[in-house]
């Protein structure tokens, strides 16, 4: 089992390489079309024409496009991610502080959304054919018509402004000092350095963004789970289990749920990729210092070195989450495990 999973993961990584090469080329070509002069933006005010030419050469912009692409890729591979034009800091530093914030947000939202979805899906299944199912169905249709960034705004309006229950700006209270960075993941760091005040503040700051991100995932999982439970319950082996006198509860928990898990897992994989996209606006609205905020700022400031790296990081995240879900799918699927 472990060996097969490892092989699958390895194969996914190898398959991801050509995709990443194409993705990076696409990002690179798109950004060459930007109507902005990266040379002029990198120069201090009052520079001469000679400074301009020197900077152009230093940035490699006097070469052909394929050569420039090669320079970018080979420096990426050497670990040189470039320097932000706007912040005047290495891009790698900016990404290193922003990435863990976004990953924390997505992991929590996936867990919360999945739990809500599984609970709701089982409720819908249990209530099948009743008025309760109709109400849940209508409710999920309405919830799905509100995109995450509107949830973010509504949550701030109701739970931040109207009834000030929860904080909605940033990742920590301004009064809480940052713990020393061990992993970059604030939650882990606060536990490892024994700072419950940081942990508490960080968790309360995450509540609203996590709700905004997970609330759209739950109805999708509910529906897939409900329909696959209904399909599974028709199978012969379930009828046999019933004949053996196993309780309905046992049947659902031990037999039906196991089979219904597969389509649910692959749905989470697809939606997990989309959720990284959803964080962009949610982070911006909550002023949460993650990759999304970095990306929006960089796009607004025409900070191309940041845009190209952050764009690529997002693609790596999507491919990674797809690969992880594939392995989980394998682990949960007895048919594939035999092969």
């Amino acid at each position, binding site marked *: 089992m472990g060996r097969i999973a490892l092989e699958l993961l390895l194969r996914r990584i190898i398959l991801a390489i050509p*995709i990443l090469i194409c993705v990076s080329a696409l990002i690179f070509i798109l950004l060459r079309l*930007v109507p902005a002069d990266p040379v002029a933006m990198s120069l201090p005010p009052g520079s001469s024409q000679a400074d301009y030419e020197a900077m152009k050469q230093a940035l490699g912009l006097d070469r052909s496009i394929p050569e420039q692409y090669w320079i970018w890729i080979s420096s990426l591979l050497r670990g040189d991610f470039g320097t932000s034009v706007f912040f005047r800091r290495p891009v790698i530093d900016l990404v290193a502080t922003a990435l863990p914030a976004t990953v924390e947000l997505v992991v929590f939202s996936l867990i919360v959304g999945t739990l809500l979805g599984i609970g709701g899906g089982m409720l819908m299944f249990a209530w099948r054919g009743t008025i309760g199912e109709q109400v849940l169905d209508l409710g999920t249709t309405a919830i799905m018509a509100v995109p995450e960034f509107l949830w973010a705004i509504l949550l701030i*309006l109701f739970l931040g*402004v109207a009834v000030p229950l929860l904080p909605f700006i940033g990742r920590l209270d301004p009064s809480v000092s940052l713990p020393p960075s061990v992993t970059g993941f604030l939650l882990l760091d606060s536990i490892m350095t024994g700072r419950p005040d940081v942990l508490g503040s960080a968790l309360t700051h995450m509540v609203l963004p996590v709700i905004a991100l997970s609330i759209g995932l739950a109805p999708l999982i509910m529906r897939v789970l409900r329909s696959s439970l209904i399909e599974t319950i028709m199978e012969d082996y379930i009828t046999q289990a019933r004949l053996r006198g196993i309780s309905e509860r046992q049947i659902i928990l031990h037999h039906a749920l196991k089979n219904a898990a597969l389509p649910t897992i692959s749905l989470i994989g697809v939606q997990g990729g989309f959720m990284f996209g959803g964080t962009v606006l949610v982070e911006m609205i909550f002023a949460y210092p993650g990759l999304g905020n970095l*990306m929006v700022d960089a796009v607004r400031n025409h900070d191309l070195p940041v*845009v190209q790296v952050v*764009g690529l990081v997002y693609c790596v995240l999507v491919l990674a989450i797809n690969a992880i879900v594939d392995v989980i799918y394998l682990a949960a699927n007895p048919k594939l495990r035999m092969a």
Partner: protein
Amino acid sequence: MTPHGRQALERCLHSPRILVGGIILILIVIASLGAPIFAPHDPQEQDLINTLLPPMWQAGGDPSYPLGTDGLGRCILSRLLYGGRVALYVAALSSLGAMLLGTVLALLAGYFRGPVDWLISRIVEIWMAFPPVILTLLLLLALGAGVNKVVLAIVLIDWTRFCRVIRSDVMVVARKDYVAAARLVGFSHVRTLLREVLPAVAPLVLTMLSLEAGIAVVVEAIMSFVGLSVEPDVPAWGVMLADARSTMNQAPFGVVVPVLAIFLTILSFNLLGDGLRRALDPRLVTSRGRA
């Protein structure tokens, strides 16, 4: 109309989803197209004495501003009506464009298979590695901001949604005997595709078109919210949201109005799409018939 078509139409007219979604959508279309008639004010007209007025039914409201005013004293109702035009314009153009591009490529990939399918599938795979929001931001950075650029960006990104789903349906249909028969009778590839394959996948295309229109409304709202869509002098729902967000503490109602408008528009497209899928999908129709 063929008897089959009439049956399908009848099923559509009896679907509560299609009826409710359709009615909401028609009301939104009338309100937006009639904006010059219904709007009490010019959407850009500033009344700096009457800023942040509450809606007329609340204390301090002014009947000449039925939904109140924003931070610059602009009429929220007028901006709402005119903003609907931007949303519907983007929804219609971009969903049609994405449908056209995605369906054509799906037909080619699913019907001819081989290297054509390989190439198109690889492109879809690369596109799918991007979260759509990120690719939209990259495209708008490259193309420059503007509402027509948003339409173009949505077409260039969301054709993959159509292509992925329709391609697999085309593959199933293209294997059917009647398609082979059409070829044997001497139909050209183009004629077979248009007369035999396309009608079989048309219900799916129509369903996806409706859902895509809802997605386009969201993307336009997001992009005008971050300032990459409409010109500053054009009212759009995303712009209204961004403006109202800065005055949310004093005038929370200004946020609720565009949120409701976006919600109702997406809801109508989703209900339509969901209803069409249930009414037109032959697999669902027969399985429901059996049950």
